[in-house]
């Protein structure tokens, strides 16, 4: 658990959790989370498993985005993706790669992304979010889901989501599919940034009105009990309620003080 910057009226409490897909080590996890406590900017990205250097791309997007100012409007965000893609591509060109890596690198890398900026400098705390693909922002109030974006239903998760490409010239149409939203926070609201598998799982719990499982998950997350949370998700995978994929969760709870 980490405690980012407080305002005079609000405090944010963070809990994060990363868990790789079965058979992989944590170092192979292609989901990434970044936090900038000074600016209250938080981001999560999910590198596409079949893409080249997806782990690096996911890490680069989140760490660079939380250091930015604004970068919330779609056009501004697309320019940011272009610039980061150039940096990543330049890092590859400095490497001596075998033929298959060169071939794969030509297609670039891909990642889903969601970022949120929270403003605590006013009486009413507010948030703004930018997202591309199926990494989600889910807002929880009194242990109930009240908002989910950019994917709002568990049935809308597919095998081929729109993703942020490192080579934007190959997929310019993605620029038109960047989502942006904003809203207000109430005392005790929890904003969850989630990669796709766990986002689909949470939305399904909500659709099935499975409040017990949702409450158990939120309780484990708040306790920062990684081992028990990992065991909890392993059980969900074993029962096939949760897709076997990398899991990334960042919980941001806003409390009025």
């Amino acid at each position, binding site marked *: 658990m980490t405690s980012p910057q407080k305002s005079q009226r609000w405090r944010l409490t963070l809990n994060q959790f990363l868990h790789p897909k079965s058979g992989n080590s944590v170092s192979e996890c292609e989901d990434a989370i970044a936090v900038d406590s000074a600016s209250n900017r938080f981001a999560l990205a999910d590198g596409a498993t079949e893409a080249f250097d997806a782990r690096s791309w996911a890490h680069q997007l989140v760490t660079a985005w939380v250091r930015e100012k604004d970068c919330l409007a779609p056009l501004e965000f697309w320019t940011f993706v272009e610039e980061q893609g150039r940096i990543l591509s330049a890092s590859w060109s400095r490497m001596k790669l075998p033929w298959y890596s060169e*071939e794969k690198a030509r297609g670039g890398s891909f990642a889903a992304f969601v970022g949120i900026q929270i403003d605590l400098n006013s009486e009413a705390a507010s948030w703004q979010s930018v997202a591309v693909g199926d990494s989600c922002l889910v807002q929880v109030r009194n242990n109930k889901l009240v908002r989910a974006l950019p994917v709002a239903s568990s049935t809308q998760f597919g095998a081929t989501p729109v993703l942020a490409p490192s080579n934007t010239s190959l997929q310019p149409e993605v620029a038109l599919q960047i989502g942006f939203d904003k809203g207000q926070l109430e005392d005790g609201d929890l904003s969850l940034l989630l990669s796709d598998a766990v986002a689909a799982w949470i939305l399904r719990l909500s659709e099935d009105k499975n409040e017990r499982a949702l409450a158990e998950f939120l309780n484990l997350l708040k306790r920062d009990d990684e081992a028990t949370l990992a065991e909890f998700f392993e059980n969900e995978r074993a029962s096939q309620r949760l897709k076997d994929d990398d899991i990334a969760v960042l919980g941001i709870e806003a409390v009025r003080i």
Partner: protein
Amino acid sequence: MYAAQITRSNPTCIVLLLDQSGSMSDPFSGDTSSKKSDFVAEVVNHTLHDLVIRCTKTEEVRNYYYVAVIGYGRVVGPAFRGPLASRNLVSISDVADYPLQVKSSYKRVADGAGGWVEIPVRYPVWINPLADGKTPMCEALNLTKNILENWVAEHPQGFPPTVLHLTDGESSDGDPDYVGRQIMSLKTADGPVLIFNCHITSLRREKIEYPSDESALSDGFARTLFQISSHLPENFLAAAAQLGVKASPGSRGFVFNADPSSIVQFYEIGTSLTGMTPYRWMDDRSESA
């Protein structure tokens, strides 16, 4: 069935079984410049290339697949040439690291600003075209069966092996029905071994793709191949749909009188395990400089 996750600890096996008999030196109908054996070798090299790229994680190739390329003609055995020659079953990382040669070329791609730019690309080669001798299909299927018996014994929980068999003629060493059915009876906990057959021809005849019954097959050899062709599982049907190929539940993995485009699609669909997006290398190649 056919839902097991393919991982390094639970890999799957793909057998590319190739007719390399003398008749493969004949041209396709209407194209005297291209021998069937040349075209098939090119498609197989691209298929291996695609499998390697799918398993590439930055600088590492993960062993999700083990691949056999078995040729039959004057001899029956591994068709790999170069460092992998004489090896029946090869990990995909060894396929990546030990091609016979890597050819360099240029490809024209969009520059993102309305123009075109040429970029260097590399095409590895693992097998050379070969067309010599008779068609000992039964012996080749027996070798395949032996490889797969060992595989399913060692990987009882894995995604079942897939056999992609391409031939241009009838067997010269007996009826392949019996050994074909033996292969189809092998299985893992995730389902029976998949065998798909593609018959190619030098004659201009109507092709039959992925039929669900024998009614359109007037030829006895065609019916034999149909009967030793597995039903296309759901993931493979999805891949066929993505390629615009007509196939439906009940369709067999069988093409008769295939033309060049059917051959390419046969390998694209046949390697689309777990519903992976087929790799459309023909589109890719069309821009080669």
